[in-house]
């Protein structure tokens, strides 16, 4: 029976890829382990190996095809004795397509998938972006890379270090091209030694350099947290202002997809508690770029929390030589009068989608992207609450002592008289992240959670 070759998923977050090259043509014989094609994902170019033995009966997706969904049949392999006619005769060539489509439809019905799509909202640029500035569309990943490259061109003391940042071009491709432009002296591959290289980075910062330390994910930074807090955050104070740590710790934070409890933790609240640290967590590509540039220039240690799922999302970014977004300033991303929704990073995808849903029910939500968690721009939140009288916070992290809890406490203390309903938190569930797809979905925040919370505070 002809065997379909399906578009493979090559990473936990991959949904589609480009079929960049066929290395076998129709009629070629293949055996298990032969490389038959090259697939380009947003992170890397990967080889596809044949699993079955036989002859390439038909190539269903020509090379050069972009955005081929995972599980789409891309070729058919014929077993010995079969010929091309058996593809049509048996109908097996077509069957998987239908199966894949139904699978796709099932997947996209899940809120998790909704969250993974960037909302079609036109986000206003920073107020100080000159009118008429050209906007270019780029991914968060590219924006982060450009920010580092620009700052490294500007200041010879800036360097980047971490696991796989140089020759591998970044585990998530964020540092792509930096080694080629700046060389191995300034783009430093480290051994897998988080505690050690975090401390080494802080030492270099104490010595006067401006390191960007990439953690492959912030989950691994728990091994390094002593240096982040005890060495980086406290030294300025402990030295009576003599010595600071101008260092940026950056990398993906929070849940990716289906990587289980140890790889899916949101550390925003952890770091936000520490005096001496600045904690930034952008959502859009423009903010990612402008805030990372500001973070690199900061004389203080900055925790820069990215999100793996957002890396591939595209946003308009002002085409300016030196685009900086100020640290410590929230942004009203969508105006509204009925309820204030505050979030940041990936939480914004739920918040914005939720606001769209609420608008259909005639609840106009004002959505604020906090962007910087510490120092927190609570004034912008309070200004909005004074108008709406209602507040919902949205985060993927755990509820107890979370960032939402902090916002709720401060708004209750400073704007109590303006509140028409209790501040409500939408958070990840109070459990370690499960692996099973259905349980993971239940553990994460959802658009529906946001909608229901907003309706509740509006007594609707």
């Amino acid at each position, binding site marked *: 029976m002809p065997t379909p070759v399906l578009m493979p998923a090559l990473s936990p977050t991959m949904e589609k890829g480009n079929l960049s090259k066929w290395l076998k043509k129709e009629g070629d014989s293949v055996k298990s382990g032969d490389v038959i094609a090259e697939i380009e994902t947003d992170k890397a170019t990967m080889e596809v190996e044949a699993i079955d033995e036989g002859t390439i009966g038909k190539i269903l997706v020509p090379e050069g095809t972009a955005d081929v969904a995972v599980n789409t049949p891309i070729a058919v392999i014929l077993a010995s004795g079969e010929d091309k006619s058996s593809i049509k005769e048996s109908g097996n060539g077509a069957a998987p397509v239908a199966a894949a489509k139904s699978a796709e439809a099932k997947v996209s019905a899940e809120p998790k998938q909704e969250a993974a799509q960037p909302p079609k909202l036109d986000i206003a640029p920073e107020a100080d972006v000159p009118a008429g500035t050209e906007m270019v569309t780029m991914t968060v990943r590219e924006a982060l890379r450009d920010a580092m490259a620009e700052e490294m061109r500007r200041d010879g003391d800036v360097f980047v270090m971490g696991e796989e940042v140089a020759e591998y071009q970044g585990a998530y491709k964020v540092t792509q091209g930096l080694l080629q432009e700046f060389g191995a002296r300034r783009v430093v591959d480290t*051994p897998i030694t988080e505690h050690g290289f975090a401390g080494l980075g802080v030492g270099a910062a104490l010595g006067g350099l401006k390191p960007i330390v990439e953690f492959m994910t912030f989950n691994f930074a728990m091994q390094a947290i002593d240096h982040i807090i005890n060495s980086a955050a406290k030294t*300025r104070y402990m030295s009576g202002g003599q010595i*600071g740590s101008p260092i940026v710790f950056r990398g993906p934070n929070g849940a990716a997809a289906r990587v289980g409890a140890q790889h899916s933790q949101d550390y925003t609240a952890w770091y936000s508690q520490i005096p001496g640290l600045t904690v930034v967590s952008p959502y859009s590509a423009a903010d990612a770029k402008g805030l990372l540039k500001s973070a690199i220039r900061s004389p203080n240690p900055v925790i820069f929390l990215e999100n793996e799922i957002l890396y591939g999302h595209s946003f308009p970014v002002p085409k300016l030589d030196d685009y900086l977004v100020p640290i410590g300033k929230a942004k009203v991303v969508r105006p509204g009068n009925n309820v204030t929704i505050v979030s940041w990073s990936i939480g914004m995808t739920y918040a914005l989608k939720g606001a769209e849903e609420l608008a259909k029910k005639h609840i106009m939500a004002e959505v604020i992207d906090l962007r910087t968690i510490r120092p927190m721009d609570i004034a912008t939140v309070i200004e909005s609450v004074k108008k709406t009288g209602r507040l919902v916070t949205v985060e993927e992290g755990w509820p107890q002592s979370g960032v939402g809890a902090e916002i709720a406490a401060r708004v209750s203390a400073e704007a109590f008289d303006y509140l028409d309903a209790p501040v409500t938190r939408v958070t990840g569930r109070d459990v370690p992240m499960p692996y099973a797809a259905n349980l993971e979905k239940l553990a994460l925040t959802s658009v529906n959670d946001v909608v229901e919370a907003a309706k509740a505070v509006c007594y609707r």
Partner: protein
Amino acid sequence: MAVAKKTQPAQGVSRASEAGAVTEFSKDQELAAYRDMLHIRRFEEKAGQMYGMGLIGGFCHLYIGQEAVVVGMQMALKKGDQVITGYRDHGHMLACGMDPKGVMAELTGRRGGYSKGKGGSMHMFSLEKNFYGGHGIVGAQVSLGTGLAFTNKYRGNDNVALTYFGDGAANQGQVYESFNMAELWKLPVIFVIENNRYAMGTSVSRSSAQTDFSKRGVSFNIPGEQVDGMDVRAVHAAAEKSVAWCREGNGPFILEMMTYRYRGHSMSDPAKYRTREEVEKVRNEHDPIEQVRNRLLQKKWASEDDLKKIDASVRSVVNEAAEFATHDPEPDPSELYTDILQ
């Protein structure tokens, strides 16, 4: 001093022949070493006294007995070389040339202290003197010091980062993470392991599978030497050799200083884990200051009177520091919220 080029990997651990090397000091060197070590000892004795009077709070770890280590090492340094250590740091600061008034005022938590009274005994710094702390987390200074060495290499200068830690810290994991990166990237860092035989109350033999700390770099191909840390001339010889090794771009070097602390781990340690006889034996037979004193007298480079004059002058500097640290005001309450961010 000639430096042997490393020819064989993992062969770098020098044994008795090399480890016994001492620098023949000139009269000026002996006198300087005497004065500097005495300065640390008198300062620490005074700090202990002031702690007892309640003028110094918290933890206070005295360096008495180990003076030859920092004084001998410092003699091999040049401008721009950095020093970093753990919490037993008063001796290192004085050896770096920091003002005893500023150090003592920090111990008493006064505004004239090096950290304006916000750091305390374990957390002091001086950019001017290239002293990078003063770190309270055991072993943290090892990765930080390796980072200072990274800075030197990045900048392309030939400065060396002296990274001190104890036999206790030598069992921390990040020490070996740092060893690996230091050798991998040939960073100019000297890991000075001050083996004073006790990690707080736990003796080396009760805490360490490999008690020869000079061998702790073998699996990273880092050369190491055991040094008589009670003889300032032996420390100086090892310092010259390892500093030259680093300046020439050969990467890190490990020095295990065999030393001893006379006092408890901190002021609140009754030191019941060792006998009084053990302490007395080291004091009587190996005291670093007595050794120099005896040589000065024997060679007639100084008379009893000359040495008494040095002692008096050191005491007066220390008393002045104590006086300052006692009467300097506490930090202004407004300092609570300063120096957190720039």
